[in-house]
């Protein structure tokens, strides 16, 4: 199922590379680019 502009971005809570929890709600107040990519260090 694809998302479309104008809709709310689905909420999430994930840990970053330093173990800190990052939630979408914490990013509010600033624009953010969510960039999904296949496994790091591969060409995929």
């Amino acid at each position, binding site marked *: 199922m694809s998302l479309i*502009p104008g809709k709310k971005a689905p909420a*999430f809570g994930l840990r970053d590379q330093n173990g800190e929890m990052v939630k979408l709600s914490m990013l509010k107040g600033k*624009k953010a680019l969510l*960039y999904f*990519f296949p496994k790091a260090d591969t060409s995929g």
Partner: protein
Amino acid sequence: MRDAASELAELGITPIGISPDKREKQKKFDDKYELGFRFLSDEAHAVAEAYGVWAEKTLAGKTYMGIVRSAFLVNEKGALIDVKYNISPDQTIPFVRKALGESEPPAKSAPQKVEWRLDLKSADDEEKASTRTVNQATDELNDLFKRQRYCVLATERDGAPYGNLVAFASTPDLTELMFVTSRDTRKYGNIQANRQVALVIDNRSNEASDLLTGLAVTALGIAEQIPESKREHMRSLYLAKHDLKPFLDAEDTVLIQMLVQKYIVVSGLDSVIELTPAE
């Protein structure tokens, strides 16, 4: 992606990279490339599924589930400004600019006529020399650059020279040469240490006659990553010559341009001319 981080910062955007890698893997990736990105580990790919980027992919005839490289620009209130599924790494910044209604910064070098100045280094063959014009010389170079696919790249680090073969391409006005490299190569490391590089492009056929009829061009110049505004243009020039799109699109691959400061053109045994961009 490295350049992207600073460009995004300028646009006031927090970049967040999300992949199914373990945290430790992302940490290593981050340490290695110093991207300045925040990486989130989505091992269970639940977030990927919520965003619709977890999909069946095919590689070498096998199907598996994986991430479709995608970008989501989120506004200050958590709503999606724009969405792009199946994005290539170098489309990311143009996607963001377009979504924000920002125009691309003007290309630094719009196609304009570049003058070259010719210096004769061997005047012993005066008849030949007098008929040799700048235009003939640039035509000769363009012809050679079109025919040859590979050339030797010379780099240096800590006083140690290094040479290797690269697949190169040129701009029609000859002001830039370009080649691709992975970041984890010796040549890339050398270029980071010293941007002054040389390329040797020649037409040798490995016959004895090469000594008399061969043409060898040494290009001296500065290697650098291609500015975002020029990247599409340079990419298309490069891909028009080399069928290397998968390599060029790889995460770790960079297209490097060399701004040419001087061409030293040696034809036959002793005819040497130099071409420099005229002021």
